[in-house]
């Protein structure tokens, strides 16, 4: 029998959670978690290497009966889109452990258990080919995240955690209703591939699309469902913010790719103009909100709203350029915004302030910190040569093909983005050295460099050689477009 590699990937961190209580000191707990998550990462790398780019079919499939009477199965498999998100999740996983090495001082064991658990569930979501399994993991993920924010967060952590939980839970209920409708209309099975192959009337599609839309819009988040995000980000510890921005926000967009587009092709085409309009709104409005912030963590959080707008914009252009741009942008956002939260965390650890005007001259005071932070800011600004630019140009060129106004709004959003990011660049990094309350500030140590370097590599790798990503992505996206076109023409 072949090794069930996806199961190994999912269950490795889960088994580690069980072992964790038997470990004694905090140091051992940290090292153990780091090693487990790093091994998980290596498996994800191997997955990428072994991935067959010549087919759009699901790969590494596993299938076992679970609750046969209800059509529920333990079904796993990945395509060219999910393989990247598994990789991203696994990469950010061990970086999160390193990022919380010193900043998490109490209840270390519980914290690391939460990290391991959420990693297991997130990878599970990206592997799941069974809707029931997907839903269970999608919901269960909220618990460790709720704990991470609620226990190890800032002053307002309980409020933020609760708001996060309520918003996403409300969305999930609609998601559940949508799933149940598909279950009954699509032949009483939870097999995702069977549900994709089934045909639904336009009325069913439209209803389910709206239910899914709200569920995913909360996760992404799209305007006007975004208000939980800044609270959650500001209160979450660094690792929480990285996971939230890096992976959890992607879940909503991933939902569109896995559910809405292939299962509801007619509704997707019908609602595409509306989705494009909402995305354009999110890009500009999120950008303007970011522009108004002085709290650096809030600023990055709002910039996420704007950047996620680019992703939904690209997805609903329903052409290859726009969609591959969107997926690239999802990956980019995980890398770059993850890195920005990491650096915001580093600066907060040193000075216990997040107010932009209180800083200055970081490039002089702490050169390595300054130069790396500057690079990630430029990447977020999508300067040519960095990852952001590739995603932006693909999304925009895809959008220009369908809607010139939305594309222009995207350009305006990019300009606003440049404005607030350049603002941070100028105020925090340049000028005379200024540190809030005369705190001591020190440059990056080896552990912190180790966190930043892998992200830095991807900034330029994606920026200059996105082809390695596109070759894996494109068969899947072309297949998705085919599904849209074929059923679209029939309906």
């Amino acid at each position, binding site marked *: 029998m072949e090794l069930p590699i996806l199961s190994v990937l999912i269950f490795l961190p889960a088994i580690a959670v069980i072992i964790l209580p038997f470990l004694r000191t905090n140091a051992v707990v940290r090292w153990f978690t780091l090693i487990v998550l790093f091994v998980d990462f290596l498996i994800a790398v191997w997955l990428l290497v072994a991935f067959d780019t010549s087919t759009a079919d699901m790969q590494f499939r596993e299938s076992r009966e679970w609750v046969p009477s209800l059509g529920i199965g333990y079904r796993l498999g990945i395509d060219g889109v999910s393989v990247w998100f598994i990789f991203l999740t696994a990469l950010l996983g061990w970086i999160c452990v390193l990022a919380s090495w010193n900043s998490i001082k109490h209840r270390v064991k519980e914290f690391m258990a939460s990290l391991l658990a959420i990693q297991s569930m997130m990878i599970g979501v990206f592997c799941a080919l069974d809707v029931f399994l997907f839903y269970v993991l999608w919901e269960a993920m909220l618990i460790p995240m709720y704990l991470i924010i609620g226990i190890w967060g800032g002053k307002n952590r309980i409020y933020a955690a609760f708001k996060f939980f309520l918003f996403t839970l409300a969305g999930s209920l609609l998601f559940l209703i949508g799933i149940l409708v598909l279950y009954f209309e699509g032949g009483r099975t939870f097999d995702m591939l069977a549900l994709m192959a089934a045909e639904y009337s336009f009325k069913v599609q439209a209803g389910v699309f709206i239910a899914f839309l709200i569920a995913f819009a909360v996760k992404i988040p799209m305007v006007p469902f975004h208000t939980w995000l800044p609270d959650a980000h500001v209160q979450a510890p660094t690792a929480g913010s990285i996971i939230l921005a890096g992976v959890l926000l992607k879940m909503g967009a991933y939902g569109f790719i896995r559910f809405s587009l292939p299962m509801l092709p007619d509704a997707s085409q019908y609602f595409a103009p509306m989705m494009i309009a909402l995305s354009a709104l999110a890009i500009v409005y999120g950008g303007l909100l970011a522009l108004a912030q002085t709290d650096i963590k809030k600023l990055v959080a709002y910039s996420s709203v704007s950047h996620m707008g680019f992703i939904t914009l690209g997805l609903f252009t329903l052409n290859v350029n726009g969609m591959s741009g969107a997926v690239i942008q999802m990956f980019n956002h995980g890398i770059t915004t993850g890195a920005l939260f990491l650096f915001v965390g580093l600066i907060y650890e040193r000075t216990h302030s997040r107010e932009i005007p209180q800083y200055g001259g970081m490039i002089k005071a702490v050169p390595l910190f300054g130069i790396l932070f500057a690079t990630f800011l430029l990447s977020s600004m999508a300067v040519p040569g960095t990852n952001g630019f590739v995603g932006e140009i693909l999304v925009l060129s895809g959008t220009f093909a369908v809607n010139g106004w939305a594309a222009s709004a995207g350009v305006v959003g990019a300009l606003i983005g440049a404005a607030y990011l350049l603002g941070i660049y100028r105020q925090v990094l340049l000028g005379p050295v200024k540190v809030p309350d005369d705190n001591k500030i020190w440059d990056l140590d080896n552990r912190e460099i180790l966190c930043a370097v892998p992200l830095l590599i991807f900034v330029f790798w994606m920026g200059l050689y996105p*082809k390695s990503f596109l070759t894996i992505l494109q068969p899947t996206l072309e297949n998705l477009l085919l599904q849209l076109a074929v059923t679209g023409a029939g309906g």
Partner: protein
Amino acid sequence: MDYLLSIRPVLAIATSLVAAVLILYMHNRPNLRDATSVIAAILKFFIVISMAPLVLAGSTLDLTLFEILPGVDFAFRVDALGMVFASVSSLLWILAAIYSIGYMRNQKERSQTRFFASFAVSLSAAIGGAFAANLFTLVIFYEVLSLVTYPLVYHKENKESWKGSRRYIVYLVGASKSFLLAALALTYQVAGSMDFMPEGLLKGSDASDFILIAIYFSYLIGFAKSAIMPFHAWLPAAMVAPTPVSALLHAVAVVKMGVFCVLRVIFHVMGIDVMGNLGLGIATAYLVSFTIITASIYALTRDDLKARLAYSTISQLSYIILGAAMLTPLAVIGGITHIAAHAFSKITLFFCAGSIYCASHRRNISDLAGIGKRLPWTMAAFFIGSLGMIGIPPTGGFISKWYLVTGAVEAKEMVFLAVLLVSAILNAAYFLPVTYTAFFEKEAQSSNPELVAMESVKEVPMVAIPLVITAILSLILGLYPDYFLELARAVMRGTGMS
């Protein structure tokens, strides 16, 4: 046309990048550090010029490194237009490097390592842009140039320089993150590629006229380094930088990068057919004519020497675009030759402004009465530079303006002929008085204690020597203009004009 595979374009770019690393490494050994700048500049110039015979013979040197997106490579191509820009920038870097050492040491400027390192990377970016084979590659170097010149502009780190540098970066990045980004996305959407084509990438595309016009003007505004009015305000703001920066970067490398990008768009993205058919050439010509005259009028009113030079640059850059936009063979040759002619003369003038400042701490023209006796070499060079700006033989400026004027006649556009002549008069009106004040007005004692007393003003050799050389070069260019004329003709022929 022959396509030759060659590593030399990358070597030319890498020379100054390696130099930048060495400069950072030798931060506490100033002599070695500064020698590195000069050696790298000489090396770079020889690598660039070694490619000239092949380009003049009608070949291009190509190197494709890898594919970025479908239809878009990270690729270099050395052609005649790129060669014009690269030869000028790399030759003048040698002199600017020597001048910088003299100027920075004389002024005991701060952060000299950062200065020389940023300077070297700027040159890599300029040459990278010159040799880029497509828009994507070009734009990477274009943005790098904005970012690495930013520290050079805020170099003094005082209130004035923060203010100026802020305007600088906001204008440049703002234009590229809005108009340029839109233009690139549209181009990629329409053409599925970003390659420069001899007769224009968008020639024969099925895009509507409206889209083509939108693309073109987005490029024109997006490449804000070309300083077309009303998107010029960053250039006077950049004058807060130390004078060597203003001289090489804000009279040659950075601004010429902007103009170079516009020429690339006119010739190799839109193509002269599209430009002509849609009336874009004539529209552009009117737009830049406005800039030529208005910037000259601004220059007339400026007493600060560097500000006057900056407005003169804005005006002269538009000459280059005017030549291209008239779309006649002679005008195109004139425009392209003016890249070189303006560079040699304007760098001389800026070097002179720096030399005057080094020797006397004077910045205003009204304070220069009688300084010609104390600084004869500097002010003589200034006079020669002025002649180049006005276009009086035997300077390079005469050659390029001659072609521009005959080009305007050829295009039967008397409006542009008038613009060129009026502008020449305006140039004379704001440059010649400087020489007059310096040589023929009586020395006046200034009450300003910051200024060095006239008696103790004398030439600073390491600053004066490069400016004499550039002045001589601008004369040589007038007497032996063949190299640049041949390159310009090659560009003109390549576009399908006859």
